[in-house]
């Protein structure tokens, strides 16, 4: 590696450690949130340096968009921060065992990582690619070879939405009354681009970095931006249609999986000649559904179905 690269990586690591420390130990909650958001930005750059553009894309779309928005909105709901008496955190002697434990743990992890078989399962994946139905190995793993894991991930997200929605109604009323004439104009420009890039990433997923998760995160970011600019969940979308949209990804996934059982004899077995179209269906349904689910998380509760007077 060139010395410039080494310096770059060292500086990147150093900044990430500083930001991670700030994210956990900052005295002021807002400072911690900003540090965490910046940490997300640098993480995406780190994935790029590790030559994993797929993960960089996912980290960029989730970390730069929705995670930060969720944390900032939560901070707003918590209200002004009450601080306890100021504590000086000094390096105490009692921290030494923990430090030692951390060092030993890191060393063990490093040793384990280095002793893993070098190419991992990469060759097995590449050998199976002709039957995968897509050109991108990452998408093939996510939606064909290990589709079961992705199904469960979407299921976990759905559970989170259900748990959050059972806590109460949406909290959109707490929006700021500050006049912001430029904001609706911005959203009018950006929203079509958000939709466009969502479908661009879904389409890219077939043969390169992209796919359902980054696409869903982008769609959610667009919807959240619209909500922040003053948009409301349309009246006719509330209730059943919204619930179908939230659960639709998992539903489509399950239908394809069970269909595979019927057609090819095993749960999630795609018939090879139809694999391509089936994966496309699952990917689009999952992407859109992930977008709606993330937006639902931002809403903080289910939008009420009937509202009297102005909404």
């Amino acid at each position, binding site marked *: 590696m060139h010395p410039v690269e080494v310096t770059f990586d060292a500086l990147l690591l150093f900044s990430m450690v500083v930001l991670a420390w700030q994210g956990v130990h900052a005295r002021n909650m807002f400072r911690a949130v900003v540090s965490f958001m910046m940490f997300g930005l640098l993480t995406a750059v780190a994935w790029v340096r590790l030559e994993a553009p797929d993960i960089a894309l996912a980290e960029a779309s989730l970390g730069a968009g929705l995670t930060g928005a969720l944390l900032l909105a939560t901070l707003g709901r918590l209200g002004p921060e009450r601080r306890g008496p100021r504590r000086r955190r000094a390096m105490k002697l009692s921290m030494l065992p923990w430090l030692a434990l951390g060092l030993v743990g890191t060393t063990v992890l490093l040793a384990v990582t280095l002793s893993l078989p070098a190419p991992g399962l990469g060759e097995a994946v590449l050998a199976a690619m002709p039957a995968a139905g897509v050109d991108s190995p990452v998408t093939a793993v996510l939606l064909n070879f290990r589709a079961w894991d992705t199904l469960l991930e979407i299921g976990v997200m759905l559970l989170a939405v259900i748990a959050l929605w059972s806590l109460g109604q949406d909290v959109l009323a707490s929006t700021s009354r*500050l*006049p*912001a004439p*430029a*904001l609706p*104009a*911005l959203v009018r*420009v*950006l929203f079509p*681009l958000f939709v466009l890039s969502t479908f661009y990433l879904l389409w890219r997923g077939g043969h390169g970095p992209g796919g359902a998760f980054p696409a869903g995160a982008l769609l959610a970011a667009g919807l959240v931006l619209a909500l922040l600019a003053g948009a409301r969940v349309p009246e006719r979308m509330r209730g059943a249609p919204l619930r179908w949209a939230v659960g639709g990804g998992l539903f489509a996934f399950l239908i394809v999986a069970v269909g595979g059982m019927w057609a090819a004899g095993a749960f999630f077995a795609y018939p090879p000649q139809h694999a391509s179209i089936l994966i496309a269906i699952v990917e689009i349904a999952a992407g859109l559904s992930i977008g709606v689910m993330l937006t639902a998380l931002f809403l903080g509760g289910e939008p009420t179905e009937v509202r009297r007077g102005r909404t």
Partner: protein
Amino acid sequence: MIMMAGTVLIVLGLLFFLSGTVGLLRFPDVFTRLHALSKADTLALGLVCAGLALHADDGALQLKLLLIWLLVIVSGATCSSLIARAALAHGIRPWQR
């Protein structure tokens, strides 16, 4: 020759990023810092994008670079206005000598 011009543009862009950072650190209040920051959003990134576009030889790539720049400009301008309004609403008075 064109490669050379691209390199010069990128270096200029980097210098404007530096000026944005210096401004962010040295200027006395939010509004003046916004002024420094908006240079990084528009001019600095624009120069870097233009330089890379000169280095690229593919029309689609150049279009994508242009799109990236436009997106950041639009967002940056709106965000500057939002932050300035919010800061005023919070009673932060612009710095005066």
